[in-house]
């Protein structure tokens, strides 16, 4: 077997050329419409060959919680908070016109009738396309959410440094 010598600068240029563009999205919101926007951009970017990382923090964590998952906090304050703050991609409220869930139910019907994917389907598509999903450890702790109650496929638990390390190389960085 003959080995060919690769010139370092050429190899570097090739690497830079093949390096995909990076997109990072911070999802702070747990509203259905905002989660949809985040996942539509994420899946669209992945379909365009970009490397996508999504960070979930605060209410955004509700989007990647298993349906019906309860809070595992031991202290009463956070425990009671868990009763109010329910998770699950299929049960997110609209940021406007929720009307105790009625508006959201109507919106979901319109979406279904028009073949529009909902948040659970968009998450599945995102995972299928290799979108990386990271949960924020600080807010997991603050909200009393255990990592076992997050959906499968959440790649890692991390903090702000991990986000910044990815975002500094990102050509598109969004906060939703």
């Amino acid at each position, binding site marked *: 077997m003959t080995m060919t010598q690769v010139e370092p600068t050429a190899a570097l240029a090739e690497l830079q050329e093949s390096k995909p*563009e990076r997109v990072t999205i911070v999802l702070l919101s747990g509203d259905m419409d905002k989660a949809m926007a985040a996942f*539509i951009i994420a*899946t*669209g970017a*992945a*379909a*365009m*060959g*970009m490397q996508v990382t999504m960070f979930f923090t605060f209410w955004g964590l509700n989007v990647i919680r298993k349906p019906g998952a309860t809070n595992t906090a031991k202290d009463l304050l956070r425990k009671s908070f868990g009763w109010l703050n329910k998770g699950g991609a299929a049960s997110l409220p609209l940021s406007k016109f929720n009307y105790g869930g009625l508006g959201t139910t109507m919106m979901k019907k319109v979406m279904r009738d*028009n*073949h*529009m*994917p909902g948040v659970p389907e968009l998450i599945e*598509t995102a995972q299928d*396309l290799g979108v990386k999903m990271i949960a924020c450890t600080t807010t997991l702790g603050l909200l009393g959410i255990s990592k076992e109650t997050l959906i499968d496929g959440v790649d890692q638990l991390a903090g702000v440094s991990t986000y910044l390390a990815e975002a500094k190389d990102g050509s598109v960085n969004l906060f939703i």
Partner: protein
Amino acid sequence: MRGKGDNHMIESDITLDTLGYFCPMPIILTSKKIKELTTGQVLEVLSDDEGIKKDMPAWCQTTGHEWVGLEEEATDPKTVYKAYVKKTK
């Protein structure tokens, strides 16, 4: 499969039907379907989402596949857009 239809101007090898689907589905389905083609083949994407007129050329520009062109067919009640993409790699 080439040259099917009478008023068909652009020739294609494979057709992807995304009728009834909104953004981002046509693009996502295209990115999956293109893998089934061999280099040089042309994919025809059917869509009734008007956004495809701008989105598919943008997708081509980013992914490096060749944008061949678009045909519109006015049908009732919606216009059907036929976007053509040539696989380049």
